[in-house]
């Protein structure tokens, strides 16, 4: 039994480390990303990184994006637009970046992001935009 317990502990540690690394990567990408792709004064929008061979993009991410009504979505081929993809540290497809009113990345999602999560992030970005406008 002790071998099984140790193995569980090892795998648990690996999974936790991977989750921590992923969280750190998302945080770092958000804090490093300062460039806007376009329309800095507009409503928050989504930059959606995808690729020809990304299955989850077609089966999961695109239906989730289609459920967002009235939101601008910039679809980007991560392989063709390497420079833009590098700016957001895109190494997993799909990746979605919520760009705030100020043109700065407010949230970065590596992997599939369901529509409720994206809606929440867009609402956050709208609120942040309103607050900064009120204090300006």
């Amino acid at each position, binding site marked *: 039994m002790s*071998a*099984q317990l*140790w*193995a569980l502990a090892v*795998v648990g540690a*690996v999974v936790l480390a991977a989750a921590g690394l992923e969280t750190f990567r998302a945080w770092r990408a958000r804090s490093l990303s300062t460039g806007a792709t376009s329309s800095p004064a507009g409503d928050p929008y989504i930059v959606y990184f995808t690729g020809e*061979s990304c*299955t*989850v993009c077609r089966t999961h991410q695109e239906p989730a994006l289609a459920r967002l009504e009235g939101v601008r979505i910039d679809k980007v081929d991560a392989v063709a637009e390497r420079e833009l993809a590098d700016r957001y540290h895109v190494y997993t*497809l799909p990746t979605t970046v919520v760009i705030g009113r100020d043109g700065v990345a407010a949230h970065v999602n590596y992997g599939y992001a369901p529509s409720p999560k994206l809606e929440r992030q867009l609402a956050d970005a709208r609120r942040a935009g309103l607050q900064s406008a009120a204090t300006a």
Partner: protein
Amino acid sequence: MSSGSQVVDHSALKVNQTGIVVTVLVAFFGSVLYRPLLVLIPLLAIVLLLGTFAPQLALFKQLYFQVLKPRGIVKPRPVQDRPEPHNFAQGLGGVFLVVSSAFLIPLPVIGLALALLVAVLAFVNLAFGYCLGCQIFFQLEKRGFVRA
């Protein structure tokens, strides 16, 4: 890079992933009471590697195509996709299980942990659609190390 116009039945992939998760869990927890159940891990390695190079020998996929699909137990889900990344991921799982099997007797903690990692990754693919092996394949392909 190929055009990606082939069709892959994702239900077959899901059955395969379920088979991997169940087999590893039975071996892992079953071996607490009955140690010989650990033999399931090298057997699973053989099944995965055989299935990678000869799809007609892929046990779980054949279970789906010969039994589950014809009887309507699992419904087909054809998706326009490339089979190569999924085959690569399966092969990688098989290789990890071979290494795991080699460690089972001298260092059971390492052997069991590697087998459990394969099950965790298969579960992540099954539940969330994230295929780490496929990502590795795409990265290797982009750098020209593998060709579809």
